[in-house]
């Protein structure tokens, strides 16, 4: 789906679009994982913290819908959610839950920076930078709750230098 606003001097080739679509599929897989993971996060947090979890879940549900629509419009079959996921560590306390939320958000951020790297369409990069910023904003809150110092990251989504 060319939007006519890709690279300044070139039109996206089929290879460009294929790379972009593959990166979007990675992002969608991370979104599926986040939706699942926030169910675990919410179950381990006290009731008064659940509103924050619901807000995160809703943000990812909205992203999922956007990505599915975008890929479908390109005649690309969106990746389905895995039937189950493996937790990276046991989630037994609110701090564990916050740490899991950090993992979810940082995993999503990594896929969005990859989308930025691979996208030939300007509109896709607009979507990606907005999603990346939103993920980091959520990650800051969860890192703080998990006791991380500082709770911010200089380069969200990029590998450590």
């Amino acid at each position, binding site marked *: 789906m060319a939007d006519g606003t890709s690279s300044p001097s070139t039109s996206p080739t089929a290879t460009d679009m294929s790379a972009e679509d593959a990166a979007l599929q990675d992002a969608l897989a991370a979104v599926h994982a986040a939706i699942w993971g926030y169910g675990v996060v919410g179950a381990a947090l006290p009731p008064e913290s659940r509103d924050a979890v619901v807000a995160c879940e809703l943000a990812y549900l909205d992203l999922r819908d956007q990505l599915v629509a975008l890929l479908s419009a390109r005649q690309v079959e969106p990746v389905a959610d895995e039937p189950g996921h493996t937790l990276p560590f046991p989630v037994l306390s609110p701090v564990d839950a916050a740490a899991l939320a950090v993992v979810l958000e940082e995993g999503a951020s990594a896929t969005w920076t990859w989308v930025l790297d691979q996208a030939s369409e300007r509109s896709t990069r607009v979507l990606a930078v*907005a999603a990346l910023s939103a993920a980091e904003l959520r990650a800051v809150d969860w890192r703080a709750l998990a006791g991380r110092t500082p709770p911010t990251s200089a380069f969200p989504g990029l590998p450590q230098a």
Partner: protein
Amino acid sequence: MSGPLPAPPAAGTFSRRSLLLATLAGTALVSTGCTGSSGDVTDAVTPAQVDRLAVQVRVQEEVVAGYDQALSSAPDLVTALTPLAAQALAQLDRLRAAAPGDTGTTAAATSGTAAPTDPAEARVWLRGVVAASAAAHAEACPEFTGGRAALLGSIAAGLRGQDGLLA
């Protein structure tokens, strides 16, 4: 339970190729007239993009200068702000490395008012500087492709996180 959580499958490829290109492009593209003679159009920059990158370097210099001003005006904030200031400086270094021809010699200064001496007011003032810079980088990001788009997007997100923390 079957799938690993989470799975950012492309991150390794990303670090190996695009980031290196973004970092090295600063010197490589200057000598080729910024037309991407490496054959990788994804990481080529146009003259207009070179100018835009220079603007983003100036934007980031204002963030670094903002932290310096806030720290000198309101020393009570040193514990809270020092790690964030270090992150802003790291962002500036990486942005300069990705900006073709940037010499990194321009003196940093904030273009607006001076930081207030009251810690709470200084924090609000600094938040304004950081938020404006985050928005500027986010707006510039889609105008680039490849590693530079990723770098600008990441820095925009990092500053957005700082903005949230300063709130």
